[in-house]
């Protein structure tokens, strides 16, 4: 007998039961858990008290972070000197650009949205497809990508050495040039950029205040939304922890771009082809500091938080690679509104930031 038959039968039974359960969903909004259960839940989303982690090889210092910030805002890092890192990662737009898809070298429209940078120090993999294992490795990628800043690291090093104002900044950050090396080199440029990125941490949001005991910091809608988020809606299966990401890769069933020459495989391009589940899989983004009416998802294909929730309600396109965590989530209108209120409570007030002087 086919070993799979019992499993298939169980699957159909589950499907029918699932549909039945859905039909019996109570219409009234749920209330958040309370008491010990709530405290346990809150602990899973509490901000860490420790400073941002950093690799032992590249410990942060104020001077290194300041140098990294200067480099980050310097358009010399692009070949045509027209684009800095901050051109796309704009601090006034929560370190993104407000566009559905990023604008690359000389205005080329890129296939993916510019991700925000906050809390990257705690990240485990970088870029939408996770192809960078460290922030140091990541920092090099947009600088050298032909369709982004299109720069050559050797050329960049020479260019910065020719700027008199950079020498004291590098010396303050790294000390004098070693006997067998140069004051300004590729490693130091990337280390400084990575250190600056590690210093970017989300400000305290209303949700954080509520987690820490300020009961009125968020309203009843957001509290109900949190209960849904961490409960029946299962959003926290992937959007977990205080950063609301598992730093992992999932195909959530977004429509593939019909205009693309080839479908974007995301993480699937970096794993063996037999790993079907990673095709069209992208890194789970953090949910902190979202722009409520902004573009979302790796390809900017959905606009507004409400549209994102609608996507999860529907469950995404069914295909072989669709994440096992993706299944339709029936939500009433009030429940959707509660989720939106909760997600909005994760945004801290924007803090104006003036760009540093460029030498």
């Amino acid at each position, binding site marked *: 007998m086919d*070993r*799979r038959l019992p499993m298939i039968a169980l699957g159909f039974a589950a499907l029918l039961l699932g549909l039945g*359960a859905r039909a019996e969903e109570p219409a009234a909004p*749920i209330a958040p858990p309370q008491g010990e259960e709530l405290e346990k839940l809150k602990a899973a989303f509490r901000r860490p008290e420790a400073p941002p982690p950093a690799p032992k090889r590249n410990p942060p210092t104020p001077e290194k972070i300041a140098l990294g910030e200067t480099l980050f805002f310097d358009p010399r890092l692009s070949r045509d000197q027209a684009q800095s890192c901050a051109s796309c990662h704009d601090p006034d737009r929560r370190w993104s650009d407000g566009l559905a898809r990023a604008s690359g070298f000389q205005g080329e429209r890129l296939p993916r949205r510019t991700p925000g940078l906050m809390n990257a120090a705690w990240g*485990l993999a970088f870029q939408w497809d996770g192809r960078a294992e460290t922030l140091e490795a990541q920092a090099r990628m947009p600088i050298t990508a032909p369709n982004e800043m299109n720069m050559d690291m050797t050329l960049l090093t020479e260019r910065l050495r020719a700027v008199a104002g950079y020498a004291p900044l590098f010396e303050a950050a790294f000390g004098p040039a070693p006997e067998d090396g140069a004051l300004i080199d590729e490693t130091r440029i990337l280390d400084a950029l990575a250190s600056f990125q590690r210093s970017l941490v989300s400000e305290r949001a209303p949700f954080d205040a509520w987690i820490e005991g300020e009961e009125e910091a968020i309203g009843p809608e957001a509290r109900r939304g949190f209960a849904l988020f961490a409960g029946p809606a299962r959003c926290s299966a992937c959007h977990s922890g205080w950063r609301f990401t598992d*730093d992992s*890769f999932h195909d959530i069933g977004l429509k593939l771009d019909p205009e693309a020459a080839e479908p974007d495989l995301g993480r699937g391009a970096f794993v063996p082809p037999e790993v079907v*589940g990673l095709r069209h899989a992208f890194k789970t983004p953090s949910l902190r500091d979202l722009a409520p009416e902004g573009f979302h998802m790796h390809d900017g294909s959905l606009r507004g938080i409400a549209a994102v929730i609608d996507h999860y309600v529907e469950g995404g396109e069914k295909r072989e690679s669709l*994440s096992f965590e993706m299944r339709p989530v029936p939500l009433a209108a009030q429940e959707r509104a509660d989720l939106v209120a909760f997600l909005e409570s994760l945004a801290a007030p924007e803090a104006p930031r003036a760009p540093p002087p460029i030498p």
Partner: protein
Amino acid sequence: MALSGFFMRVEVAALAAVLSLGFAASRAQGAGEKPVAGEICATRAEAPEAAGALPESSAEASAEAPSGTEEAEAAGAPRSFTLIIHHTELEQVEFETRAGDELIFRNTGDIAHNLYLTYEDGTVETLHTQPPGTEKRTILKASGRVLVRCWIHPIIRLELDVAAAE
């Protein structure tokens, strides 16, 4: 009443998740993924879970391993080691393995995984999608450092020093 409504919905969701395992497992096989050698799928793995009988630690599981008798141990016969994955935590246990031993990965969490092993010579063995409540089995094929990771969840990581077969 409202609070009990919350837990009722959680229970409904949990029940649906548990019951959907059969569907998920059949989907994984139906998708044409080649089962790994010695893999047992949902039918065998879910039964003890449903009865609440899943061992809670690898130590217990190892003691119950089918080939773990003293005679087998003395003869250098292959042994089985069970490792628990709960959500994104792969149990960090210390045990001495050797080539030919069997590893059983038991997913007791509520999310799917896709584990793979990388041997010292660069050989990669993928264990394919592992829905919640299922087990994946593999035989350690060579001695040396073996790295266990998950394609989906980079946080999952376990390094093993595998001795040569006796």
